[in-house]
């Protein structure tokens, strides 16, 4: 029966042949090649849960009075957006679970992208011919970051309102074009009623569509260029080893999908995220200094907290101090990331196409640099919670900030030096090990090759 249906479709669409070829595609086996898939599947979870949320969320700033099961807000004036989120949390069956899953999925989505980018970076997978996919990947990261920001900013709670104000003043701080950009983006002086509908449109339509298109392109290019592999016996720049898409790879991948779903569902069910009912409705009178963004933007917030308060003039114009840590720093950071393939070409004098990766220890400088940058970002991330640390440890936030201001330079330097040393050591060890392996292999007259692997 199934065969008959299959034949019916095939005689019309002629899909069997390309499908067979596709299923014969070989994908290399290594856990680090599945990191991107975690991101992909979190995105799927985001779409599924997001579609559910969109049925109940009302992206409007109309004012109304809440009456509902959450006593502590009963009779309080709020925006329709916030009211619909409260209804979602307390009135819709499974609404809170889905909402929390959506938010956790966003955190994991971006976390997985970062881990994936780190893998690409440390193994040199961005080298020719994969620069385009490096750029697409970075663009996906930027889109994901912005959509995360839009997502938690539209809820109309006090925290998101504070975050929106921070975003607005950051944009205002850009010299010359700042006020125009801010007007274009937020639609006026925040808080203004048009911002939430505008961001909601971006959040559920424009950005996800862009992410989907780029994702398709990203995967298409991987398909076309074939995946890279780690160096190993029988692995050259002209062959690919691994398992076939069908059945081995498909099984692994579907298994991973279920695991991603399970972890997100577990977090959504067990750990509270963004408890908007505690934050209360946004109210311009209620200032909330020290509002933290989600982790993927916390490094920028941390940079703003650690940056000293200085006045810098450009000619007669004062550049607001948030501009440097809030705009210039992240923009420069991403520009450096985008240009990194050229930088790598410049220091390695290597412009050949590569399909075999390099181990991190083969590039001590790059690895040390990457680790130092990660440490830098980590300290900034911690700095975004300096007030929480101060309260938890009973110390003054001034002290914590001073310590972090020192750490933000010292920790990356120390990390870089240690990693550099480790790379040199392990490069040495591997060279010795390889020598010995080659000796014994030639003595026994055989070469080691991977088991169960297909070469194409």
């Amino acid at each position, binding site marked *: 029966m199934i065969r008959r249906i299959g034949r019916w479709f095939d005689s019309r669409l002629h899909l069997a042949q390309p499908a067979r070829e596709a299923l014969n595609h070989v994908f290399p086996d290594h856990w680090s090649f599945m990191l991107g898939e975690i991101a992909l599947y979190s995105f799927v979870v985001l779409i599924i849960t997001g579609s559910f949320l969109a049925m109940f969320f009302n992206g409007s700033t109309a004012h109304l009075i809440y009456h509902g099961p959450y006593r502590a807000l009963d009779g309080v004036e709020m925006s329709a957006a916030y009211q619909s989120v409260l209804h979602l949390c307390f009135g819709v069956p499974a609404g809170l679970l889905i909402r929390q899953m959506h938010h956790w999925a966003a955190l994991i989505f971006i976390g997985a992208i970062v881990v994936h980018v780190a893998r690409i970076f440390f193994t040199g997978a961005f080298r020719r011919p994969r620069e385009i996919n490096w750029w697409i990947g970075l663009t996906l990261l930027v889109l994901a970051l912005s959509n995360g920001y839009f997502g938690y900013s539209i809820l109309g709670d006090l925290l998101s309102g504070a975050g929106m104000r921070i975003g607005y003043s950051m944009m205002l701080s850009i010299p010359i074009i700042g006020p125009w950009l801010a007007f274009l983006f937020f639609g006026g002086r925040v808080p203004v009623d048009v911002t939430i509908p505008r961001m909601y449109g971006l959040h559920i339509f424009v950005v996800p569509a862009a992410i989907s298109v780029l994702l398709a392109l990203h995967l298409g290019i991987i398909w076309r260029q074939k995946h890279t592999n780690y160096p190993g016996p029988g692995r050259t720049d002209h062959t690919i080893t691994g398992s076939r898409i069908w059945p081995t790879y498909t099984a692994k991948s579907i298994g991973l999908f279920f695991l991603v779903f399970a*972890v997100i569902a577990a977090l959504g069910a067990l750990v509270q995220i963004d408890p908007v009912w505690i934050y209360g409705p946004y109210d311009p009178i209620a200032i*909330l200094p020290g509002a933290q963004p989600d982790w993927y933007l916390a490094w920028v917030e941390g940079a703003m907290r650690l940056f000293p308060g200085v006045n810098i003039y450009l000619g007669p114009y004062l550049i607001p101090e948030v501009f440097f840590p809030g705009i210039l720093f992240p923009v420069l950071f991403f520009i450096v990331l985008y240009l990194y393939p050229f930088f790598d070409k410049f220091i390695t004098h290597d412009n050949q196409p590569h399909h075999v990766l390099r181990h991190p220890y083969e590039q001590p400088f790059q690895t040390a640099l990457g680790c130092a940058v990660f440490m830098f970002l980590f300290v900034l991330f911690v700095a975004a919670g300096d007030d929480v640390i101060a309260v938890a440890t009973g110390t003054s936030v001034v002290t914590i900030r001073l310590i972090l201001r020192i750490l933000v330079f010292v920790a990356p330097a120390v990390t870089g030096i240690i990693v550099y040393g480790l790379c040199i050591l392990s490069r040495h060890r591997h060279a010795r090990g390889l020598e010995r392996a080659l000796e014994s292999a030639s003595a026994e007259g055989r070469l080691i090759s991977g088991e169960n692997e297909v070469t194409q």
Partner: protein
Amino acid sequence: MFISKRPAGWKTFRLALCALVLVPLVSPLAFCRQTGGSPSPNGAAIFNRRCAKCHGEQGQGISAIVSIAGPNIQAVHNPGRAMMAVETGPGHMPSFVNVLSVPEIRAVSYYVTQHLAVIPLQGGNLAEGGTLFRTHCAACHRTAARGGALAFTGINAPSLANYSAPLVAGAIRWGPGPMPAFPPSVLSDEQLNSIVKYVTFVQHPPDPGGNSLGYCGPVAEGFAGWIGVLVLVIFTIWIEKGGRG
């Protein structure tokens, strides 16, 4: 700081002292009985003997047209402030450093702040309290009242998770340390009670979403999210091992 554990036997001692001092004076004895459970009956006695002539028996002040007439001190909620007044003697008030011992000063100060300056704790509306809390307190104590850091003073606004209602009410009127005081002209008794209600509520809010991570906010959530990412990375390694151990 001001509330220390009393040694065992204190109650007996207190009653004995009470009897000793007050038996000759009939009306204060009645007063002592009235406030039998209170922590500082000798505070009451000291007050009535030393302070009432200037401040009135209820601390309401006296309306004599002399400069030494004591003002109304029913709004003094800060025991430290009362102690300071008793020790230093502001303006035309005499200093009692040489007259009263340190425990006596402490006792009379407590009597002033906890008995004369009590705020009636009734009425109030939870939701209104939430709104007032967000506009008046959340800037320092955070929305979940779990404490916040003040960069300009370097002093932290403490978590309010373990404060009893009278202490919260007192602190609002008193304004300890860098915290502003909120006199009745800013927050009426009714509004104050609403805030106290909300603080009591938010000490144990319903947590429908699971573990609250201590209400630390997005940075704590970020750490939890990264634990999720790490678990998934470990899962990929496990998958590549063929799902075996």
